[in-house]
């Protein structure tokens, strides 16, 4: 990469930083614009009291003016502190780390399978265009792409009832189990949510790969490659797939962000205590610090993934970034 590419990347990084700052401010305003507060929620619980309401308002700093709350929030952020969750009084970073740790393996497994399956099916569909195989795979792909993830999840739950666990991240009932026993238990719990993700996501990749590949296969240089007598596999791998990868990389980069930010519907169907459910719970509780932390994580992840896609683009296509 030359100087032009370097400037391009610096610009993208600067743009990313501005995006994060804007998101931080918007997050602060947005959640406070929601009607109701964490205190109104918590002070309504059975056996509440006026003392509880006053204590919580003071403790959460909600008795201060909004601008002071914003200043405090920025100050905490600069010092790497995401604040304390109203829900369980633990640091937001600790809560988020726990939720991310739960989400990442399940989402990553599902996504890797989806990408691999998507590229494979997309390539086969384009390469065998017009055959029964293409018709069949396209029909399955479009169907799975269209149905909601929660529906696929519920069907899998019914089909695999009694064979695989129906919810949660692990069995709480394993007493005295070995490390291997716990590992296998966690993997068994991961199978259905990951499979749901894989089945509902692979269609998107397959359709993009198919379309990009069909476009590439119609190019003149493909005719030249064939005319040179190159073996079909070489044509596909070296000339067609490489050129068809650009849009796929964008999709993968965008999806990669979801590994961290979670899939709320799948997490709900499978009672998976991940980031998606944590965000949903935080919205219901009006847990501002948790929401701000989660959305900051979401913003930073998306910005980083886009940055990675930009860099990959610059490497794959010298025209990008000059």
């Amino acid at each position, binding site marked *: 990469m030359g100087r032009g590419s370097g400037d391009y990347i610096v610009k993208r990084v600067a743009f990313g930083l501005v995006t994060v700052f804007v998101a931080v401010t918007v997050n602060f305003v947005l959640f406070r614009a929601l009607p*109701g507060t964490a205190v109104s929620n918590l002070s309504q619980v059975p056996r509440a*009291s006026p003392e*509880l309401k006053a204590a919580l308002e003071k403790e959460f700093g909600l008795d201060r003016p909004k601008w002071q709350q914003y200043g405090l929030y920025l100050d905490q952020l600069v010092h790497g502190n995401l604040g304390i969750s109203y829900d369980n009084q633990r640091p937001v970073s600790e809560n988020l780390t726990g939720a991310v740790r739960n989400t990442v393996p399940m989402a990553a497994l599902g996504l890797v399978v989806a990408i691999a399956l998507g590229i494979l099916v997309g390539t086969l569909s384009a390469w065998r265009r017009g055959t029964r195989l293409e018709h069949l795979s396209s029909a399955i792909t479009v169907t799975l792409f269209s149905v909601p993830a929660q529906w696929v999840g519920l069907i899998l739950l019914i089909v695999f*009832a009694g064979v695989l666990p*129906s*919810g949660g991240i*692990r069995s709480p*009932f394993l007493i005295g189990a070995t490390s291997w026993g716990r590992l296998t238990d966690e993997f068994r719990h991961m199978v259905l949510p990951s499979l749901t993700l894989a089945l509902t996501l692979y269609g998107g990749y397959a359709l993009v790969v198919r379309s990009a590949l069909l476009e590439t296969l119609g190019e003149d240089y493909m005719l030249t490659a064939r005319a040179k007598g190159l073996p079909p596999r070489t044509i596909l791998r070296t000339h067609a797939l490489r050129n068809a990868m650009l849009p796929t990389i964008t999709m993968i980069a965008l999806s990669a962000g979801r590994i961290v930010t979670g899939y709320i519907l799948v997490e709900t169907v*499978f009672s998976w205590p991940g980031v998606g459910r944590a965000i949903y719970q935080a919205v219901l509780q009006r847990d501002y610090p948790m929401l701000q932390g989660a959305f900051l994580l979401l913003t930073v992840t998306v910005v980083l993934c886009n940055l990675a896609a930009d860099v990959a683009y610059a490497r794959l296509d010298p025209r990008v970034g000059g």
Partner: protein
Amino acid sequence: MGRRASTRGRVLVAAISLALVAVACGGGKSTAKKATPDGTVKQGGVVKVGISGAPFASLNKFIGPIGIYPALIQIYPALVQLDPKSLDYRPDFASRWETSADGTTWTFHTVPGAKWSDGQPLTAEDAAFTFNMIVQFQKSATANYAFAVAKLQTADTPDPNTVVLHYGSPVSNVLAQVQTLGILPKHVWEPLAMGDGAAIKAFPNVPENGQPVVSGGPFMITDFKKDDSLLFLRNPNYYGQKALIDGFGVKSYSNQDAMVSALKSGEIDAISGVAPTAVDSLKSAGFTVSAIPGFFRSDLIVNSSQNKAKNRELLDPKVREALEYAIDRKEIAQVVSLGFAQPGDSIITPPSGKWHNPNLKVAGFDVTKANQLLDDLGYRRGADGIRVADGHPMSYEVILQPTLDRAFQIIQAGFDKLGVKVTPRALDGAAAFQAQKGPDNKYADFDFALSAGGGTPQFDPDFPLSTPTCRVLGIYNTTGYCNPEYDKLYQQQSALPETQRLQAVYQMEEMLYNARPVIVLTYNNAIDAWSNKWTGFVPSGRGLFGQIWIDTFLQAHQS
């Protein structure tokens, strides 16, 4: 070389895949079983319980809402416990107690020789420390238990087996309060009760390094996964009757279908909070289904604030009476809860036993009478069929919390026959309360709200009776009702001996019944189900994993 490597790679992938499939489809580890010598009761085993929703955020009792309370009553001893049979308080960590003549001093004699799960002595000093700590920090760290130490000044211990509670004035529900105040281990919490008490709330109170949370109740919490699961094992040092099971685990499900499926497939043994729609399929699959009167209500809240700016005809008791006659509660119970609910009258639910006023009767569904009442008030129908009150159409908005849309439709159909139009406004819990109380706690704007959140959190009626008082306007008063006469009665009942208190409570229930700040629609059943491999559960009106008493799992055993 490359080809061989590729072949080896494929073999490896295939082997890993096979291993993963084997692992994925393998079964779990079974628990050991043992029988008593007479062979009638099989002891041991771990009951696996699924609950719907209610994620576990923290095991620290001073944090957040009461979701975790049912877990804590299993591990922290209380001076007294509620007895499921007599519905009265029975000795527990206190074997007996007496009260001074003026009712301000309560002396409890505790069980000698008791121990915490870590072997440390469990004495009256732990009880006194817990109560004093809550009193000391009731305006900050321990504020969520302030309700339970109302009027308590101090607790002292003349000897290690006696704790004396000194109240500023007589308190009628001391036993209910001390049942709620689970006793904490002084040796764990005393170092935290310093300064402003911030360390009290910062304490995670979770099992660490293989050690359970220090427990004194029948069970110990040995494993905790936030928002996912809890594991309880029998506490070998418990001073009372030991549980027959080795323990029980609780797993939280965010999806009711998945929970039911887990029960049917044998993944779990029991479920709490079963949806009425699942009852038939569970029964036909051979599971025991328990549907008992619950502590939960669904209500139609009517804005009762004198600050109400518009539609002030709704403040008229006659209008409210007419509206109540146009509500078909039986249909709501039948359609919304599939019959697992009963039409309601008082805000104190029937499982509260003697506290539920038996003299109140559910108003029947009588549209003719309802129309007559509105006709008598002179509210005639306009050209569009909507009645006109004080120059404006009787057209109102109903704030609607999730899950009650079907109940709203039934109410809407009834009101329609009355010439009263209602439109829904769906909001989540926090937004609904904000809309009800308004920006300045004036309760000026809303007309009606449908709520499924009503109910009695404990056997004692104090909390539900406190909800319509002026003192908690803008805090948890959802109706805007503020009546000095009612408030005076509320203050009086909190200091009366039980018989007189009962009469005061009945009077308050009647006042609310007639004023209708809340039109109680239904009392909803607590529905639980379990496998026939287990028996002996004592479910409460708050479900299998409820919070009313500790007996639910104490008598449970294998069939």
